[in-house]
């Protein structure tokens, strides 16, 4: 299968140059291309200019100064999975990277591309004329909705499929965006299904997160085949402890809503509590409180609840 249109390809070596190119109409950034190249083949996106971010020094490298972890946006998922510092201090992030796609895709795919990846709704990817392809209808409603949102939506019910977003938001990651003075919380990148808060020409250059004392985190992913599948539901959980007591909790669910979903009721309930059996059960129920599953995806509510429960049990255990 070939890419059925021509485009210009650029490989700038500075952020300045990349931003200039990307400010031009009809241009798009590319990391590893594992998401974009198949979309090009299906002509779902037809840019005139493709700008690689992989030749820019600032988008590379993983650094840790004992407090803050810094990851370049063009770092591959393999590099994250294999990095010694990440495995030692942020093992849940290494585990997440290892659970994305396949070894081949992790060798190409970048963290920036993972966070910005496009929707996986099959109607969208097959080119159905739905809202996201310029049409006026959602085919999932009344059609095949088993992979879709369990927390409602507006016009589109596709979910954000990024595994890395789930765990990195739980860790409170922030993004450095070229041209902006301040970092933004990763959570604020996501505005709706397939909608990012990046303006034309803006690119993520680095991702930062702080190490916390007395903190534990875990990533869980439920998928049908253990090998290469996207998550049906994923969760990233981080708990900060003060002795046995929970000082702060972050519970993020992935692949359940148009953006990564913060289980805020569950987080609030856990603060000040300890991880008893009753508290864990209650927290997992609260995580899916208010769920509005579609015709064919009630099962995902149960999975989400169970993942949160198992995640909390694991964090308590060791």
């Amino acid at each position: 299968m070939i890419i059925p249109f021509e485009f210009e390809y650029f490989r700038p070596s500075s952020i300045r140059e990349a931003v200039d190119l990307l400010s031009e109409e009809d241009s798009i950034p590319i990391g590893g291309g594992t998401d974009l190249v198949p979309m090009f083949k299906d002509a779902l996106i037809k840019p005139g200019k493709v700008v690689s971010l992989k030749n820019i020094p600032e988008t590379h490298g993983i650094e840790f100064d004992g407090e803050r972890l810094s990851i370049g946006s063009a770092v591959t998922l393999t590099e994250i999975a294999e990095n010694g510092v990440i495995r030692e201090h942020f093992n849940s992030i290494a585990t997440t990277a290892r659970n994305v796609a396949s070894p081949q895709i992790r060798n190409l795919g970048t963290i920036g591309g993972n966070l910005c990846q496009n929707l996986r709704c099959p109607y969208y990817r097959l080119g159905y004329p739905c809202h996201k392809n310029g049409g006026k209808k959602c085919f999932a409603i009344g059609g095949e909705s088993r992979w879709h949102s369990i927390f409602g939506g507006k016009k589109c019910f596709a979910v954000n499929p990024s595994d890395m977003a789930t765990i990195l938001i739980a860790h409170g990651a922030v993004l450095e965006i070229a041209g902006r003075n301040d970092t933004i919380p990763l959570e604020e990148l996501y505005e709706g299904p397939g909608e990012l808060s990046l303006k034309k020409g803006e690119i993520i250059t680095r991702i930062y997160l702080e190490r916390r004392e007395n903190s534990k985190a875990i990533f869980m992913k439920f998928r049908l085949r253990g090998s290469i599948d996207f998550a049906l539901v994923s969760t990233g959980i981080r708990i900060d402890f003060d002795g046995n007591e929970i000082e702060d909790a972050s519970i993020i669910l992935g692949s359940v809503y148009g953006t990564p979903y913060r289980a805020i009721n569950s987080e609030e309930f856990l603060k000040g509590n300890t991880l008893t059996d009753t508290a864990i059960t209650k927290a997992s129920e609260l995580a899916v409180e208010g769920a509005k599953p579609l015709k064919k995806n009630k099962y995902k509510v149960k999975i989400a609840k169970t993942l949160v429960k198992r995640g909390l049990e694991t964090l308590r255990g060791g």
Partner: protein
Amino acid sequence: MKEHSVEIVVNGERHHLTVGSEMTLLEVLRDRLGLKGVKEGCSKGECGACTVLVDGRPVNSCLLLAVEADGKEIITIEGVERDGQLNPIQEEFIEHGAVQCGFCTPGMIISAKYLIENNPDPSEEEIREAISGNLCRCTGYVRIISAIKSAVDKYSMR
């Protein structure tokens, strides 16, 4: 720029080529260099039939733009044997009957080669993980896994 001149080393041989921005490494390997051992299955990153080593790491050649392979060293299934002598992984795939239609085999062997050469004593779990991006519609994987296990032993005796 729509056209790019690239230099790639494929199975030890250097090539200077002009490629369009929209060409994938898979197209270049198969259609320009005639390396038909590199298979095209899904063309979307899902099956692994197109797996090759790029600078030593397995990647889906259907997902990599050819222009991005510039300056890189590539190994395809055609480059796995040495002087007409099959690699132990190839021998063990034959020995164990791990090949049925054969379509997945080149990609499987490339993934297995990366594993064995970077982890001399992989567990069964690690073997499964290493070929998790390679789909096989025929064998049910059991024979593939036992072939790789035997190849591990042969490598360690070399």
